[in-house]
């Protein structure tokens, strides 16, 4: 009922040690293509984990498996000790995991504010008769949701664009709005699919600053990122994925410096 305002100060003690998000032995096949092959890695609470690897390594498939959009053939995903595999995707959002999309998927014909309010959790917004049967409550609820939405927009620096249509935003602003949407969902683990791609230097700086700032406020991130420069600035942990399998996991500098991995990543070009 009372849509909980996402508390950014998540309770750190609730996370079992080392097992905040665990992907264990996950395999997923599309026809003849082995998208994920015995893929295992961990995401640590209140850290930024970057998922890197060449194109087609299965990074987005990992997102789809974690968020319940895809069901793996084998393996499991656990979050805070709870098994996610087989759970409907909305339950997974309720538990506190929300993902963004590489191609943004914003509601371009809606206002910036509405893009955010739709992501606010609610148990009543799927009921078409509620606005008719309890008009006053519905109006009050929408007002409260608008306020909550504005607070999210302020957090990502889009407060003054609340009533603009998304199609009128710059690409950088649209990407910030994607983060705003994720915050609105109340999730504490945010899955970002290439948040930095296509951004100008200036927009990139504000994006990275925002992500680091949200980490300070208690959010955990799993980020798909190609650019090693950005990985250096962002990552606490790096997971290197190749042909659906995790080749290396750990300290960013060590992984970026590993010549064997660089060879795979750049296809032998370096």
């Amino acid at each position, binding site marked *: 009922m009372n849509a909980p305002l996402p508390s950014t100060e998540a309770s750190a003690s609730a996370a079992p040690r080392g097992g905040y998000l665990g992907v264990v032995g996950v395999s997923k096949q599309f026809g003849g293509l082995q998208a994920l092959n015995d893929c295992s890695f961990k995401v640590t609470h209140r850290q930024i984990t970057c998922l890197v690897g060449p194109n087609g390594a299965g990074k987005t498939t990992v997102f789809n498996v974690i968020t319940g959009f895809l069901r793996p053939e084998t393996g499991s995903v656990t979050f805070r000790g709870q098994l996610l595999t087989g759970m409907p995707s*909305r339950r997974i959002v309720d538990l506190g995991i929300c*993902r963004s*999309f590489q191609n943004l998927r914003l509601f371009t*014909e809606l206002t910036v504010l*509405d893009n955010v309010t739709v992501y606010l959790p609610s148990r009543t*917004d799927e009921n078409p008769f509620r606005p008719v049967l309890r008009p006053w409550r519905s*109006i009050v609820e*929408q007002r409260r949701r608008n306020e909550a939405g504005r607070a999210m927009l302020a957090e990502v620096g889009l407060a003054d664009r609340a009533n603009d249509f998304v199609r009128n935003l710059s690409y950088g602003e649209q990407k910030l709005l994607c983060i705003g949407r994720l915050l609105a969902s109340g999730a504490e683990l945010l899955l970002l699919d290439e948040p930095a791609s296509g951004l100008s230097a200036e927009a990139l700086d504000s994006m990275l600053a925002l992500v680091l700032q949200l980490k300070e406020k208690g959010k955990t991130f799993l980020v798909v990122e190609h650019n090693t420069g950005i990985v250096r600035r962002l990552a606490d942990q790096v997971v290197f994925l190749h042909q659906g399998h995790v080749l290396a996991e750990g300290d960013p500098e060590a992984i970026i410096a590993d010549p064997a991995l660089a060879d795979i990543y750049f296809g032998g070009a370096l």
Partner: protein
Amino acid sequence: MNFLLSYLIIAEIYALAAMSTNLLIGVTGIFSIAQGAIFGIGAYIVAIATLNDALPFPLAMLLAMVLCSLVNVAMALPSLRISGDYFVVTSLGMQFVLTAAFTNLTGITGGASGLPGVPPPVLFGIELDDSQSFIPLATLALVAGMICYWLVMRGPFGRLINAIREDELAVSAAGKNVLMAKVGVAALSGVYVGVAGGLYATFISFIDPSSCDIAASFLLLTMFVVGGARTLAGCLIGPALLMALPQILAVMPIPSAAAGPLRQIIYGALLIAFMLFRPQGIAGQKL
């Protein structure tokens, strides 16, 4: 006077149907062309219930609202899982099935010759048997429908279904139950078109399959396209303009046998012209 009043009543009734079409197609993006058939279900239920004195008018209307809602949901449930374009085909099939039912269940629906002599509505002991007495009822229904539409669009559900039209996947990534929301829209839209059908049958005092066949579905679609998507003004303008057309043709010096086909041609031409030159309709938003 009566001529103008009966035009207004019919336009008001179709405005309710236009809101139904708008909820489905305009707001949520569920492209249904079975709206005429659902309108027919509402009309037949009220006609049959009041003809046989089985139910008083208000209860017959209530039954029409509930059943139209259920039929719309029943149609929606299996087919909303499939993506947009396929729903058009499913709803077309539904339209044909229901038209066939209206035409061939002669014992219940009177078959192709329809059900004449549907009694006028009786409310608080007053028989609304002419345009002057019927128009308050039609107007009241329309105003109530508009208020509800406005409330739904303003509230969280309205935002949600708008978002579903824009990007279904992004809505499910927010943890929302897209299927439930779509079923909800189908239910709500069924209520609107059921009311419209019921009022239509009792006002015209006659219902036959030709009022709810595929041409009727296209008429509802044309109203929606001409008026414009999503706005209340569009829901009023489309029916007001298209319902004026038969009246204008009736006073034109053309043989009455030609008026029907000519009307269809004009409806078709309007549909094409608007899609080409003004897809947002007269008072609507981008489709």
